[in-house]
């Protein structure tokens, strides 16, 4: 059978990629084989555009037990326990079918965690949506937000994992291309770690979980192309999730692992049966032979092509020790799940797919999993059209400006979203959503894991390299504010079309900036996800790298964000910092009040940032801070407001030569707002580290006052902040 150029390009393969396939096989591929190559060599599965640059990221430290390349990274947290965590995107499906797209995004990352043997204990989400108030796209954007939040809520709540935090940002560039990045973290003992490796020649290959249907075929290649008018017709490419099935699969897998009969296991995610078979074989340098007639199927008449490419959810592939199959079957039967031997581990390094005995595909596992073409795509100057110069601006009413920023989509309370998530199940959440970092205690040890998820695409649009560094710094600061030591990171790189040199340049610079910062802050990246082709009708999203960083701390009641009592000293650790009009261009003030984007992101001095973080950890862990909150979106004015929303506010004086708009709203990093009953002790620690820690005022009940610039009641700020999102969604 001769394949046509149309059939090749329909699989998103170039003609030269096709020629490489012919060369690797030594013959023309069959149609099924072409489909298999199409998904495995897709951007989504092969990272072919990003791989050369991802190598620049730091991946090692004393605590890293498993780095990139497995289903999730693993970090030692002491006492013979370890955590597995990773972030993954489900952007394209969430645009086409928001509810199922987001739900299966949660399902997919949870499987990545428990396939390694870890029990998931926390989920967080980074969400990006288009404008809710846009006359043309607003209604659709609201529908997407509603669908995504319901999807996450549905899946996570039913599965029984707490959704403990995250972030949600609105930009016009996400109008036709929302982002849904889901982070998950799990825990296990060192001797409970499993790998996706098909070892032991002759061992049975077992399929477990849901039956295979026709859903999600081509999901991975769909995620590797831009959106056009026809994309909505791809709804059948989106998978349908069943969190109940996933919960059963979790319990059954963890129980089956305890039998000792399992030698390797991998979930079927993107590219389904294809990916799990060839990756397990490739990692173990073995072959896998399966016969599709044994694959549990939801409908009759599926072709080998469809079975191999289906992305039906809640399925796992495992390799058991020969002769101990029954132990595995017994566990799955107890949980009411399908389990079937579908093949055998071979010694020839090949993926051989039979259908009722007849060979329908025969490809080397390495060719599929490791020999996809790698491109060093041309990159020029990062795309940007924003001017460097600031527009003329002068505030007429700083209180009104503050209220406007507080009630804007990015800054306002996200309670409407996170109250739909069960963020407490498993009774480990000591700090839930809405704080700088989420904290989950580990019952089995005396330690807790703090985690922070952050991205800032405005900064990255203005300067991808510096923007990426600022994101890493912010995540680490969020952890330090609660007293946690940052230890490791995962990243989700959401960008446009890498075949455009100015987009590729954004990706390259962001990765390099991230690499510098992660080395500096000693947070190696143990895994992550790259989502490219985030473009609709030729318009790319802002470069949106999202970082998830985890930290370790002693289990204790967390230091709150909000002021706890009146009459306490308010300290601005790190000082008010410097800024200018050019550096204001990427801030919330520029976005919401001046309605523009220009200039550069805030300036970051990494050494200074690190010192501030060391100092705040020392202060918090000595119990000297009654409250602590980092300054980020909206700068000082917003941080002070958020710290006041428990009803205790503050009267402060900022001694500065900066104009009030800059002093209040610039977003310079390395600053933390504290309240304390022992300012001298706090200042002594700050002085030891050589950083500023001015006492700027005192906490007072019900009032918010800064210089002669703003003086108002807490309630007049809290109301708009609290209700803005709900009102915007009406």
């Amino acid at each position, binding site marked *: 059978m001769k394949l046509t150029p149309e059939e090749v390009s329909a699989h998103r393969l170039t003609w030269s990629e096709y020629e490489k396939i012919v060369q690797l096989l030594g013959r023309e591929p069959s149609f099924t084989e072409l489909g298999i190559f199409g998904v495995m060599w897709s951007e989504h599965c092969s990272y072919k555009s990003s791989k050369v640059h991802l190598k620049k990221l730091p991946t090692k430290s004393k605590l890293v037990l498993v780095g990139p390349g497995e289903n999730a990274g693993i970090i030692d947290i002491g006492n013979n326990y370890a955590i597995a965590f990773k972030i993954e995107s489900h952007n394209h499906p969430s645009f086409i079918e928001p509810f199922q797209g987001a739900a299966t995004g949660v399902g997919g990352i949870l499987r990545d965690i428990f396939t390694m043997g870890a029990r998931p204990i926390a989920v967080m989400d980074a969400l990006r949506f288009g404008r809710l108030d846009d006359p043309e796209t607003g209604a659709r954007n609201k529908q997407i937000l509603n669908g995504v939040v319901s999807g996450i*809520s*549905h899946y996570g*709540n*039913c*599965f*029984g994992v707490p959704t403990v935090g995250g972030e949600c940002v609105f930009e016009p560039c996400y109008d036709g291309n929302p982002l849904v990045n889901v982070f998950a973290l799990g825990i296990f003992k060192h001797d409970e770690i499993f790998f996706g490796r098909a070892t032991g020649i002759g061992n049975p290959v077992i399929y477990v979980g849901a039956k295979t249907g026709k859903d999600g075929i081509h999901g991975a290649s769909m995620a590797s192309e831009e959106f056009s008018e026809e994309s909505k017709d791809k709804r059948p490419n989106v998978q349908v999730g*069943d*969190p*109940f*099935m996933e*919960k*059963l699969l979790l319990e059954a897998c963890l129980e089956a692992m305890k039998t000792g009969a399992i030698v390797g296991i991998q979930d079927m995610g993107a590219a389904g049966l294809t990916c799990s078979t060839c990756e397990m074989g490739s990692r173990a340098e073995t072959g896998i032979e399966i016969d599709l007639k044994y694959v549990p199927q939801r409908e009759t008449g599926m072709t080998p092509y469809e079975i191999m490419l289906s992305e039906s959810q809640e399925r796992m592939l495992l390799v058991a020790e020969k002769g101990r199959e029954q132990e595995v079957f017994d566990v799955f039967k107890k*949980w*009411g799940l399908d389990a079937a031997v579908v093949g055998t581990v071979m010694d020839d390094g090949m993926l051989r797919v039979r259908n009722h005995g007849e060979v329908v595909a025969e490809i080397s596992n390495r060719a599929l999993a490791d020999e996809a073409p790698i491109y060093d795509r041309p990159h020029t100057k990062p795309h940007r059209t924003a001017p460097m110069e600031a527009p003329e601006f002068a505030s007429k009413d700083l209180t009104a400006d503050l209220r406007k920023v507080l009630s804007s989509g990015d800054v306002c309370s996200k309670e409407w979203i*996170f*109250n*739909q*998530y*069960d*963020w*407490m*199940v*498993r*009774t*480990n*959440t*000591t700090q839930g959503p809405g704080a700088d970092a989420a904290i989950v*205690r580990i*019952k089995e040890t005396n330690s807790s894991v703090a985690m922070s998820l952050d991205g800032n695409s405005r900064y990255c649009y203005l300067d991808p390299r510096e923007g990426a560094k600022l994101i890493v710094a912010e995540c680490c600061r969020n952890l330090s504010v609660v007293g946690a030591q940052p230890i490791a990171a995962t990243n989700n790189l959401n960008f446009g079309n890498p075949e455009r040199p100015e987009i590729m340049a954004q990706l390259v610079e962001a990765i390099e900036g991230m690499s510098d910062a992660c080395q500096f802050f000693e947070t190696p990246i143990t895994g992550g996800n790259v989502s490219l082709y985030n473009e609709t009708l030729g318009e790319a999203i802002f470069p949106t790298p999202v970082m998830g960083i985890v930290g370790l701390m002693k*289990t204790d*009641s967390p230091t709150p964000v909000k002021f706890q009592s009146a009459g306490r000293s308010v300290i601005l650790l790190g000082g008010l910092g410097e800024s200018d009009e050019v550096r204001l261009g990427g801030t919330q003030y520029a976005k919401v009040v001046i309605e523009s984007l220009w200039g550069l992101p805030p300036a970051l001095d990494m050494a200074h940032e690190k010192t501030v973080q060391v100092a705040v950890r020392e202060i918090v862990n000595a119990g000297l801070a009654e409250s602590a909150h980092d300054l980020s979106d909206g700068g000082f004015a917003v941080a002070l407001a958020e710290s006041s929303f428990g009803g205790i506010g503050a009267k402060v004086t900022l001694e500065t030569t900066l104009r009030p708009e800059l002093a209040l709203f610039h977003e310079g990093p390395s600053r933390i707002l504290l309240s304390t009953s022992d300012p001298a002790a706090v200042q002594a620690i700050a002085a030891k580290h050589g950083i500023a820690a001015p006492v700027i005022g005192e906490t007072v009940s019900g009032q918010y006052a800064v210089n002669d610039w703003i003086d108002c009641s807490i309630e007049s700020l809290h109301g708009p902040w609290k209700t803005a999102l709900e009102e915007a969604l009406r």
Partner: protein
Amino acid sequence: MKFGVVVFPGSNCDHDAWYAVSKNHGQSAEFLWHDSEDLKGSDAIIIPGGFSYGDYLRCGAIARFSPIMNSVKKFAADGGLVMGFCNGFQILCEAGLLPGALLRNAGLKFICQQVVLEVGTANSPFTNAASVGQHLTVPIAHGEGCYQADERILDQLEAEDRIAFRYVDNPNGSMRNIAGILSEGRNVLGMMPHPERATEPLVGSTDGRLVFDSLISAFATK
């Protein structure tokens, strides 16, 4: 005192309940698999929260047919102490151990937050350590917690002093602000809030301890 915590496929607060009674209250606790009829000599049974059978058909509608529920019904009929939290409350209603039904929240959204409860009666093994009108902060986490029953039943519940807890600020549209009720024999409690999630200061509240403390002392003086 020995607690039995029932595990259905899809239960996900089973471990939380187990942890609350064993680690935070120092009692013994054991899991009871849905497919068995053996209550393993438990002195009290907890039907935990979660999504038993994926909430397919209706919340709790399939769980009531589990073999373990036959034993739970017999146990309750003999005066045994049974409590259901969240999905457990839904199951107890479906199983006919408690009257009424739990429908979709009035706002049509899942809600997870701390709520304030008012103790409706101190005359029960689950609330004897409380005083009537006392406020407790306990979390809710449900999509179907809107309590419904016909007027006759509601009147009867009130007349017989069987409303264990009411919401101070009704989050889900429950009739007469009902958050938890007792059976006629006062030995079965169903409530939508999660007392097992409020048994240690670290996770935000200890007010849920009152339910377990009441029960433990009721059992000791039985």
